[in-house]
């Protein structure tokens, strides 16, 4: 009997222990610490080692510079798959245990802002300071006229090409933005180079976020978008005539087998694809393929349409649970200032989020990286700013995948429009 009581006591204390722990975490996150030092926590997902090291170094320097006033504790959260980090945020929202400062993926900013889990930062940034960010960072970081979260760096999608294959067919890819290939010119290149187990292009990185990130630009190039500017409706946008034309273009490439819908990630590197839609993150990996001679050209545009390119990155914001918004904003300003932006860009070969950072990144002044800089600072568009983004991106990606394997174009896009509109009306209208 004693044993039984002991056991049940143990079980009870275990359960009590669980709830006790969450309470502790709660008081930590908003904790005052002792004395006047403000203790802050900062969550971000685990990245590559070089990237992680930059943040560790910058936070250490911040703590040094603010000794006796602010101390930041950075918690690196394993990402596992792309939603593990978001799931942790969801859980923290429910239990009010959000950190003071948190990193988030660009398109989630509007969703978090609309759900009131992050606060606007306008009062903490000067006009000049904000203007130093590249336009797409301001676009992805703003919701309903307020600025919520600056990006840590930028990103872009370019068209890589295999120099040997281009030379074989006498093709010279453009190196001036006004000569950027149109879809039809790109199609001709694919048509010429696609034979003997070589695909004309490689453009499927994954069938999730990539689909929205990369291919929304075809809609933008055609003068429309996948939702309206306010983000309140997709009807007449994603399924507009220009949208249908863009999707039909993708379907044509798929029908003629000009790209592989289930490619090996290194198809281009191995010389099995003549071109590749990819980003700066691909460049470090090219080193492992000494036979590969690669070049960069612009994201193709619609004939007579807008020159554009994807953009977007991870950003940092201040949570509503913080007791020290002013100090938390200091951390954000530090981690996204010119020095941080430059160091990060150098470490991970992604374009910087600040115009001033490009001054010291001289490699971006010449080919091939010049093309990335021109796109990032000149023509890029961020993904739609809407609180219903999770539904939009999921449904849009599903529709594009279906279209690439032969589904009816208009029907698939109509389905995206109606699902999105219903979702928006049900959860975000008013």
């Amino acid at each position, binding site marked *: *009997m004693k*044993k*039984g*009581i002991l*056991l*049940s006591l*143990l*079980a*009870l204390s275990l*359960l009590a222990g669980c709830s006790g722990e969450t309470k502790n975490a709660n008081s930590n996150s908003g904790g005052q610490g002792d004395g006047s030092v403000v203790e802050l926590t900062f969550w971000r997902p685990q990245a590559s080692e070089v990237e992680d090291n930059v943040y560790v170094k910058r936070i250490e320097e911040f703590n040094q510079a603010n000794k006796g006033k602010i101390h930041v504790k950075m918690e690196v959260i394993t990402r596992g798959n792309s*939603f593990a980090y978001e*799931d942790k945020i*969801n859980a923290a*929202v*429910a239990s009010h245990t959000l950190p003071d400062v948190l990193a988030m993926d660009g398109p989630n900013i509007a*969703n*978090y802002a609309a*759900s*009131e*889990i992050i606060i606007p930062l306008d009062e903490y940034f000067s006009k000049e300071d904000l203007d130093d960010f590249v336009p797409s960072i301001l676009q992805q970081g703003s919701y309903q006229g307020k600025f919520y979260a600056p990006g840590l760096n930028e990103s872009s999608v370019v068209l890589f090409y295999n120099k040997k294959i281009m030379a074989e067919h006498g093709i010279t890819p453009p190196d001036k933005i006004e000569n950027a290939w149109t879809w039809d010119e790109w199609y001709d290149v694919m048509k010429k180079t696609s034979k003997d187990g070589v695909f004309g292009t490689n453009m499927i990185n994954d*069938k*999730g976020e990539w689909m929205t990130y990369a291919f929304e630009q075809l809609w933008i190039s055609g003068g429309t978008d996948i939702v309206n500017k306010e983000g309140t409706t997709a009807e007449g946008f994603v399924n507009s005539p220009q949208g249908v034309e863009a999707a039909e273009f993708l379907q044509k490439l798929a029908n003629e*087998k000009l790209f*592989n*819908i*289930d490619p090996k990630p290194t198809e281009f590197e191995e010389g099995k694809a003549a071109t590749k839609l990819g980003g700066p993150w691909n460049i470090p990996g090219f080193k492992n393929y000494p036979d590969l001679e690669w070049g960069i050209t612009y994201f193709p545009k619609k004939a007579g349409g807008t020159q554009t390119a994807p953009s977007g990155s991870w950003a940092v914001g201040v949570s509503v649970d913080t007791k020290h918004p002013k100090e938390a904003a200091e951390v954000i300003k530090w981690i996204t200032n010119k020095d941080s932006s430059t160091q990060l860009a150098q470490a991970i070969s992604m374009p910087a989020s600040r115009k001033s950072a490009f001054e010291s990144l001289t490699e971006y002044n010449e080919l091939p990286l010049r093309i990335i800089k021109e796109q990032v600072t000149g023509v890029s568009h961020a993904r739609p700013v809407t609180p219903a983004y*999770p*539904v939009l991106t*999921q449904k849009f990606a*599903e529709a594009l*995948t*279906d279209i690439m*394997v*032969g*589904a009816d174009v208009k029907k*698939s896009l109509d389905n995206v429009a109606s699902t999105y509109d219903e*979702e928006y009306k*049900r*959860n975000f209208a008013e």
Partner: protein
Amino acid sequence: MMQTAMNAHKREHISTFSRQKRRETLVGYSFVTPAVLLLIFFLVLPFLLAVAFGFTKFNLLRPDKIHFTGLDNYKLLFTDGLFYKSLWNTLYFTVIVVPVQSGVALMLALLVNNSLKLRNVFRIAYFSPVVTSMTVIAILWISLYNPNEGLINSALHFFGISNQPFLRSSSQAMNSIIFMSVWQAAGYQMMIFLAGLQGISKDIYEASSIDGANKLQQLRYITIPSLYNVTVFVLTITTIQAVKLFVQPYIMTNGGPENSTRTLALLIYQQGFQFRNAGYASAISVIFFLIVVLISFSMKKFLRDK
């Protein structure tokens, strides 16, 4: 005097007995307490919460703004084409997988139960997919099913059959997932059948062969009837596993193409965690639960009445 002594003795006996019994009951309860508490906290309570959330609008990111919406979620559910499509896909998968997988498992069990020389090799070969993580297997099969250079297409090519799209076709995707699922899981049921087969006494077979029964007759009149209870068990667990189909479509097709592999479990995950509509996802879960209960009960009734 004697009577009193006897009574006293009896009384004492009774009281020791009842004290001991009470003691045992207490010990018993204290032993089950941790388990019951854990069950209440992690199974009963979440289930009741899911039922309650089913009547609310609940965005995962706005837990403070839950509000009661009555039967709205259920009204939406019964007009949602995707729900019916997912339900249909789930039932289709179950109806095909349960008999096929159990049948294959039985045949494999009969094979490895023989006194073949290599039977241990076979046993290991058929069982190894079961112990491998489904995630790993799903990723492996994505490349086997690759419409361009997948191994299966290369094999078909050898027989003069043109490339098949498999997971990229709305008419083939679900069947491709079924084929792979049967291959992966049949080894598990094989082991259960094997245990059943080894429990059948050899004497019966000997007696029947003296009576002149051939192998086929032995299978028909001895093996299969003797395996009745095992079969009921296998069918039940296979059904419950089948209706929960999630990992394969989640990894291999994400429910596509054209929702042809969207299952109820996948729909719940998508609504609840990706779209953060926890209220609506809870409503689907409740309906899903009722369907599973219905299937389990009718199976039990059907199999027992036989």
